[in-house]
């Protein structure tokens, strides 16, 4: 196994316990929310049936139950935040944990007989695997929630809609893009943000106090460069066709990502301080 894969494996192992805990919290919270929502719906139906209302009247008032009823609940989005916020924090922590604490593990990492950029790539890949893992768990949870609806709600009141159709158009499309093109756009922007953030951390670790200012400036410049096509579009009131605008954004995103990787490579080789 080459050093890069060993480092990825090591990064995954280091976060595995917390990550599993995170998944458990999300799963328990989301399934509880789903059970409460579905049971409330079922008891409402039973109550109305007991009052002698017809199915037509009930459906007219309540609508059919689908996974959409769960997905549109604010508590459902809170469980997504429970997954997203720790991962966002960990994007910083994945670097800082090597500098701080009882040990100076960064000494060991920087003295490994391997290209130092492998540290950068392994941490980035580990972050993406954590994100994909949570997305996979979310898909699984939606399927389980779909089964819960089927098990509790009578067939006549269950829309039985495929949850993948319901995702289309909902905020979940950001993490579960329906097309391959959108997948690359969504996760391409994610990769760019991750590289920019990692570079900002390395700037701070290289230049310390001055580095904080440089890192903030770097993030602002990266943001400006990425949005240049949109600025042009606004100033010229529609210079690009939509497809051209998307391509221009892809190019500007690639420029930001490549510059971030190049700068990080320079910092890790020439400027990093422990």
């Amino acid at each position, binding site marked *: 196994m080459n050093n890069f894969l*060993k480092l990825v494996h090591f990064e995954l192992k280091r976060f595995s316990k917390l990550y599993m805990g995170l998944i458990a919290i999300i799963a328990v919270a989301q399934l509880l929310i789903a059970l409460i929502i579905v049971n409330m719906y079922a008891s409402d139906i039973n109550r109305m049936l007991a009052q002698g209302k017809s199915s037509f009247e009930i459906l007219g008032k309540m609508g059919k139950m689908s996974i959409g009823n769960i997905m549109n609940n604010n508590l459902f989005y809170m469980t997504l935040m429970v997954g997203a916020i720790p991962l966002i924090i960990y994007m910083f922590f994945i670097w800082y944990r090597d500098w701080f604490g*009882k040990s100076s593990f960064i*000494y060991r990492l920087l*003295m490994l*007989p391997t290209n130092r950029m492998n540290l950068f790539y392994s941490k980035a890949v580990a972050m993406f695997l954590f994100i994909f893992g949570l997305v996979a768990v979310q898909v699984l949870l939606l399927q389980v929630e779909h089964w819960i609806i089927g098990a509790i709600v009578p067939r006549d009141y269950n829309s039985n809609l495929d949850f993948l159709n319901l995702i289309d158009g909902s905020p979940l499309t950001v993490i579960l893009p329906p097309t391959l093109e959108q997948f690359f756009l969504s996760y391409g922007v994610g990769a760019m943000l991750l590289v920019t953030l990692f570079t900002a951390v390395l700037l701070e670790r*290289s230049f310390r106090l001055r580095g904080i200012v440089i890192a903030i400036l770097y993030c602002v410049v990266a943001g400006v460069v990425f949005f240049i096509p949109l600025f042009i579009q606004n100033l010229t009131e529609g210079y690009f066709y939509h497809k051209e605008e998307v391509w221009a954004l892809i190019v500007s995103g690639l420029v930001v990502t490549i510059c971030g990787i190049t700068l990080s490579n320079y910092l890790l080789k020439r400027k990093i*301080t422990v």
Partner: protein
Amino acid sequence: MIEVRDIKKRYGFKSVLNGVSFTAAKGEITCLIGINGTGKTTILKSIMGLTPFRSGEVLIDGKHLDKHAYEKITYIPDTITMLPSMRIFEALDFMKDFYSCWNAERAEELLKFFKLQGSDRISHLSKGNTAKVNMLLGLALDVDYLLMDEPFSGIDIFSREQIADVFTSHLVENRGVIITTHELNEIEHLIDKAVLLDGGKVLKEFQTEDMREQEGKSVVDVMREVYNQ
């Protein structure tokens, strides 16, 4: 040979190294001596590429430091370089995974030498035993050069003696060692070369044996002369 040539470094507005130059040969123990803040640790970090310097150069056997050099030279800092949550055997496995120059037999030998238990968690070790694990991680690498930063700092007398025994054993034989220490008494008789530092500069560099034979002075005698001037 490690050649440090005219290294200059600043931390903010403060100059830490003002043109430090010296050499450390393979098969010799070179000791960097100086009070706190003279730049001893910074020199070691500069050699290992762990902190940048403004000008000057470091050559290891005539070459600049690159990723392959970490199979030739290693650094034992004064803090543990492994995760505290690891058990000792996990730390050894980590080293074995990444370094082709890892000598598993020697690691086992060192575990016995230092009387350490492989199943012990690093975070549960005493300061002395943590320092020994750190030494083990460096010494079990088949490298030509070892840099050690204050290996006797803050540890009990028995651990100090055990670590000092390393310098008379085959564990450092034929290797180039650069060591920084305050506890000179422990190893004065073992040093081949002394480099006296102050204010980020080399004040004096000499072979200890020559100094003893030609001028009848010990390292401490020369230190008194140089630092009391």
